[in-house]
């Protein structure tokens, strides 16, 4: 089926932000994902922000059980899922209550009135029915609709029970929005066929609901306008809509393939990092071995074992799990084997708010080990960038024979964006420092490559290179145990310098905007999009603001001090209490201004713009 001819006028929009909100059981993540994919294939640029409760299935209708999915589609180059929303779909009172404040004045409010019974209202702690509020009509483009009834009608005769039938109501809502935003139903229809191919009854009901939604929109008088958001002018290439965690897994696989190594990923499930394990465990035909360990310590140590045995060992977790790996990471530093440690950060401290995002593990990543145990740290900037950051982590680990920390966060990991797939030829080459039987004569396991200070990787099984490694201080060159004071200082410096030398392999720091000026907004990690959006808007207001976004957060780029010195002020927005800012201050003695936020949610561009304007006022 193709959508019917429009009878209402179609208005072209630059962009729109839509949020689907409903009960955890209402299928909002699915709905949002479908809208996203359809828009992606249509050619919009987009960004998403799924936000779901910690509970697996919270009791129906409760406030803490609300699940939301926000998608922003645009005909421009965008970087965040947007601050306030243009369209809110509220499937029940709890969803209305927890989301209404984010709807723009004049925005579209689609409410499923079928779920506003007395029990529903009570569960959302409403004493009166909020839909009785006459101001809704005035403040918003208010569209009340009994989706339950409409769904039951659409699916009538399908043979499904009422309960089963009602499960299709999210597709009805989706159909409504597809029509309103001039989208074809094709993508979702195809997807449904793939998914329910073997359950024709359910497939039929879902298709009917989807189409009914579009019909209702077309025929009813509920919608006065249709909109369209034209395709964006994205750089040429092949695109794929991808979540950060998927992109990260893909980057790890790509990097390991480029290095021609076996990939071993030892991990223990933890939100929001588990999806990396899940993704990798599907790549079995890429010489990928996943190991669900008994805990985080076994996860990292099994990975160290794998690297010792000649694979590229990797491990992944979130903040509390990283804390548990700290001791073993010291061992990895000491034995100087490659290792990639993924940390998809979440809000803390302790268990904190596991499903919420934060960037507060930076200092843990840089300093959270006993004694002097330096380690490079790489941070991804966007869902798609997780791919490139992962490759960078692999490159550093393998080239420099060192553990590397790769920082992502819940916002990146679960968020999605169109990702331009690099050509195979664009991927960096990654060369291992392996020793072979030919090196047996006078082999020194702690000799060093003069350029990188990397030691040779002498893999068990190789004749003639037998040697012993371990966590005790090593003698320079031989790797034997040594308690010699001078040797200890020399080795400490060698480990430090080896990590500092990684900075020699970075490209020059890129400045977005003028290369000097009044204000530099310097960020790292997932704040990239929000900062870019804010700086772009600031530019359009003629403000003297530039952006630097640090990918290699440790060691910091060698030209960073010089770049910062070209600006009157440096502002450092972070989803923590000022951790990168602390590093910048201590490294460069620069009076950088911290802009901290710890609310378990990302910055909005408007919010950052306001700060920029304030500073420049």
């Amino acid at each position: 089926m193709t959508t019917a001819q429009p009878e209402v006028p179609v208005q072209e929009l630059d962009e729109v932000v839509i949020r689907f909100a409903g009960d955890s059981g209402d299928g909002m993540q699915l709905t949002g994902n479908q809208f996203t994919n359809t828009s992606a294939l249509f050619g919009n640029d987009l960004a998403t922000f799924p936000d779901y409760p910690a509970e697996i299935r919270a009791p129906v209708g409760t406030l803490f059980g609300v699940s939301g999915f926000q998608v922003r589609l645009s005909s421009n180059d965008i970087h965040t899922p947007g601050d306030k929303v243009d369209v809110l779909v509220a499937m029940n009172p709890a969803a209305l209550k927890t989301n209404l404040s984010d709807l723009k004045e004049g925005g579209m409010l689609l409410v499923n009135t079928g779920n506003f019974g007395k029990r529903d209202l009570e569960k959302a702690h409403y004493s009166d029915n909020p839909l009785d509020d006459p101001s809704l009509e005035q403040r918003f483009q208010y569209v009340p609709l009994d989706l339950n009834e409409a769904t039951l009608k659409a699916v009538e005769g399908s043979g499904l029970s009422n309960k089963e039938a009602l499960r299709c109501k999210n597709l009805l809502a989706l159909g409504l929005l597809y029509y309103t935003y001039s989208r074809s139903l094709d993508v979702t229809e195809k997807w449904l066929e793939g998914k329910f191919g073997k359950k024709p009854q359910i497939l039929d009901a879902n298709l009917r609901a989807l189409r009914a939604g579009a019909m209702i929109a077309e025929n009813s008088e509920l919608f006065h306008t249709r909109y369209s958001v034209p395709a964006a002018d994205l750089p040429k290439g092949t695109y794929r809509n991808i979540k950060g965690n998927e992109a990260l897994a893909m980057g790890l696989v790509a990097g390991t393939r480029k290095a021609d190594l076996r990939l071993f990923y030892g991990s223990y499930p933890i939100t929001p990092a588990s999806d990396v394990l899940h993704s990798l465990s599907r790549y079995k035909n890429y010489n990928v071995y996943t190991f669900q360990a008994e805990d985080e310590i076994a996860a990292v140590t099994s990975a160290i074992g794998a690297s010792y045995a000649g694979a590229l060992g990797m491990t992944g977790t979130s903040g509390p799990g990283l804390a548990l790996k700290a001791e073993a990471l010291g061992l990895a530093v000491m034995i100087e084997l490659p290792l990639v440690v993924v940390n998809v950060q979440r809000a803390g401290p302790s268990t904190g708010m596991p499903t919420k995002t934060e960037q507060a593990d930076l200092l843990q990543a840089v300093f959270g080990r006993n004694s002097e145990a330096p380690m490079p740290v790489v941070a991804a900037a966007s869902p798609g960038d997780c791919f490139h950051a992962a490759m960078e982590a692999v490159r550093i680990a393998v080239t420099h024979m060192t553990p590397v920390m790769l920082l992502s966060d819940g916002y990146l990991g679960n968020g999605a964006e169109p990702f331009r797939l690099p050509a195979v030829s664009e991927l960096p080459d990654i060369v291992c420092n392996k020793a072979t039987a030919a090196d047996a004569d006078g082999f020194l396991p702690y000799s060093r490559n003069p350029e990188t200070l990397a030691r040779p990787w002498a893999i068990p099984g190789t004749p003639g290179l037998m040697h012993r490694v371990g966590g005790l201080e090593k003698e320079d060159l031989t790797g034997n145990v040594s308690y010699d004071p001078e040797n200890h200082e020399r080795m400490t410096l060698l480990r430090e310098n080896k990590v500092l030398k990684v900075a020699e392999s970075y490209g020059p720091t890129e400045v977005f905007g003028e290369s000097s000026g009044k204000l530099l907004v310097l960020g790292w990690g997932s704040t990239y999009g929000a900062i870019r959006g804010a700086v772009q808007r600031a530019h359009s207001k003629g403000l003297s603001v530039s952006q630097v976004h640090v990918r290699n957060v440790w060691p910091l780029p060698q030209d960073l001090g010089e770049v910062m010195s070209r600006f009157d002020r440096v502002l450092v927005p972070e989803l923590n209490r000022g951790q990168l800012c602390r590093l910048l201050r201590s490294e460069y003695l620069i009076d950088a201004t911290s802009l901290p936020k710890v609310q378990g949610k990302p910055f909005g561009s408007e919010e950052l713009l306001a700060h920029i304007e304030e500073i420049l006022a």
Partner: protein
Amino acid sequence: MSTTETPTYKKKDFVSDQEVRWCPGCGDYAILNGVQQAFATLGVPKEKFAVISGIGCSSRFPYYMDTYGFHTIHGRAPAIASGVKIANPELDVWVVTGDGDALSIGGNHLIHAMRRNLNIKVMLFNNRIYGLTKGQYSPTTVPGMKTPSTPYGSLDAPFNPIAVALGAGASFVARTVDTQIPHLKEILAQAHAHKGFAFIEILQNCVIFNDGAFEHIVGKEVRDDHQVNLRHGEPMVYGKELDKGLRLTPNDIEICSPAEASVWKADGPTGANAFRLCQGSETAEVPVPIGLFRQVERPVLEDQIHAQVNSVTEKLGEGTLEALLGAGETWDVD
């Protein structure tokens, strides 16, 4: 040497150039000697051995073996060895650990490696004490012992390492003694031949902090009467003159004549008899079993993992970078 020939080694081929740093008289010396002898006979090219340890006196072991060696961190050797074995199943992976390393801080990794049944061999040097940290009691210390951390006597009930291993489902469980080198070598050879995880408790004397802890079992004078060597398929007889036997009843163990002795079976569905034997009897003064408590065949995890990877690869074809980047729903912008 090419890896296809069967290498012929002498003990000295497994002696590394590092000075041995245990206390004079430590039981670890005898074990080192026994292991070096045993390794020379296994027919494995020496570069294929990876000897992996945690932290403790015992865990310095890898330094003294002229093989690949990894002296890791406290308690984690079984987890590290798991990664080694999955990443590279060709290696002959041996773990050396102590009662503190394996059963205190490392207990969880040990029991998980046991249930997973990776083909790694664990030698636990049980001296019933923390040697390296100067003599605190361990999870196998006999209660009442005065140690630096228990000046008024220790109170914790100890683990029975064999019982723990059986409870965790280890497919090979054995016990031997530091000074009984022929027995030790026999057990190591059996462990090596076993397809799967092998757990070997080695009673080891710490001359400094717990001297003579096993004297009542292993002392030259008493050992014939106080030990029974479990051999699969053989009757449980013991005594200097092999004049005594053990018989299993539904609820206990009895001492009997050699003729009446039960034939020891190390396999069987549950290991319940091994579980009974390792704890002894309440009614009779039975000897302490050494030898083979349990050996059953069950799937080896790294074999299964590699088989799964191979079967998926066969089905889907070997993954290329092109395939990786081209997967999923894509669209073109031009």
